């Protein structure tokens, strides 16, 4: 994912509630926000709802943003929060089996981004949310746990579980 650089003048215009500037910001960032929401929820309609709610909140609260250069990551956090709120009832952070993974050292396949994305979207909602926040978006475990309302150790074990499932799913997808 490429980092989006936003013009400070554009941000100032968005803060001034200029509709054209708002649309410009939307055009520049919509893929980033929608991809995050869609990957977390694996549902187009829900992802669109999250996208809409995210931009409405961004345009309403942008005045309170202390560091305008942090706008893209601020927007992502809002989107992640909205997605978590939508999928909260789907999250199940069941106790993960702590036995060593038999496939730990046996992964012997090549995969690309497309295949990885498909495998991510097939993960269980809870594990997918942790994987998206920690591995894809780069949040530390403490922050991800805080966003999801779980403990840091649960976040770590869920990430481990997600990676184990990804290996299996990628190999299954390659066999198909």
């Amino acid at each position, binding site marked *: *994912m490429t980092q989006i650089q936003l013009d400070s003048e554009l941000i100032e215009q968005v803060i001034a509630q200029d509709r054209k500037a708002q649309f410009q910001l939307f055009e520049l960032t*919509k893929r980033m926000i929608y*991809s995050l929401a869609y990957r977390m929820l694996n549902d187009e309609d829900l*992802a669109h709802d999250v*996208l809409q709610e995210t931009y*409405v909140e961004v345009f309403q609260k942008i005045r309170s943003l202390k560091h305008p250069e942090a706008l893209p990551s601020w927007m992502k956090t809002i989107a992640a929060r909205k997605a978590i709120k939508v999928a909260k009832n789907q999250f199940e952070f069941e106790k993960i089996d702590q036995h060593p993974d038999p496939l730990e050292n046996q992964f012997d396949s090549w995969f*690309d*981004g497309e295949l990885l994305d498909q495998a991510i979207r097939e993960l269980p909602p809870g594990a997918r949310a942790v994987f998206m926040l920690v591995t894809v978006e780069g949040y530390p475990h403490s922050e991800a746990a805080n966003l999801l309302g779980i403990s840091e150790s649960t976040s770590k074990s869920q990430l481990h579980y997600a990676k184990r499932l990804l290996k299996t799913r990628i190999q299954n997808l390659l066999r198909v």
Partner: protein
Amino acid sequence: MKDLPEYEPRSNSWEKIIKRKDFDSQLSKNLNELPIYSPSELAWNRIEEELEKKKQTFIWWPLLIAASVSGLLFLAFYQYDQSEIQIQSLQQADGINIQNLTPENNGKGETELDYLTGVKKDSSSYEVIDGEKRKIDRTKEFIPEIAVEKQQELVNSFIVKGMDLETRGKPIDSSEMQKKTFHTVAISWDIRNTKVRLTTKIGAPDPLLLEAKNKEEIYPQGQIRLGQRNIIDFK
């Protein structure tokens, strides 16, 4: 091509390839190559509609807040006004200055009036006992105002029968004394009963002279007694 020499790769080349095949290595590389999804074309229209809706509702909020605040203020003012009228009517009916009974004055004022007993309490007295400052509830005597006339000029000489206080020891001529009559005025009151008793005797015998006679003194002496509970006004 046939004539070109062949080169041997490094011995760890295969290991490096295998390492790149590692899941975590592939994962970190492919995270940057994840597909990007685009929302539908109608997404912006929905956002714009929502923003317009929020804008309209946002305009009403301050007005609603202002209206409710002003309503509350009006109610509070009305309640305060009603209580003021009630206090004034009570004040007129009882003839007592009730300003001192209000909580504001009780908190700030130095004295407070007990409405039931008519006694003034000094609430601002403190005493230091064992290094600790303690409040003392002292009660002052309630002294009713008897005269509201203009203060009279104090007389330099006060003549009591049989003597002149200024020139002590000098007896007054008996012919002069006979022309004068003496009035005894006694004013008494009690703390518990707010009644004021006024007793006047015209032409009563002089108690001071009688006292002097009883003591068989040569020259009569003037004596003004102030009781512990009573104050005698000699206006």
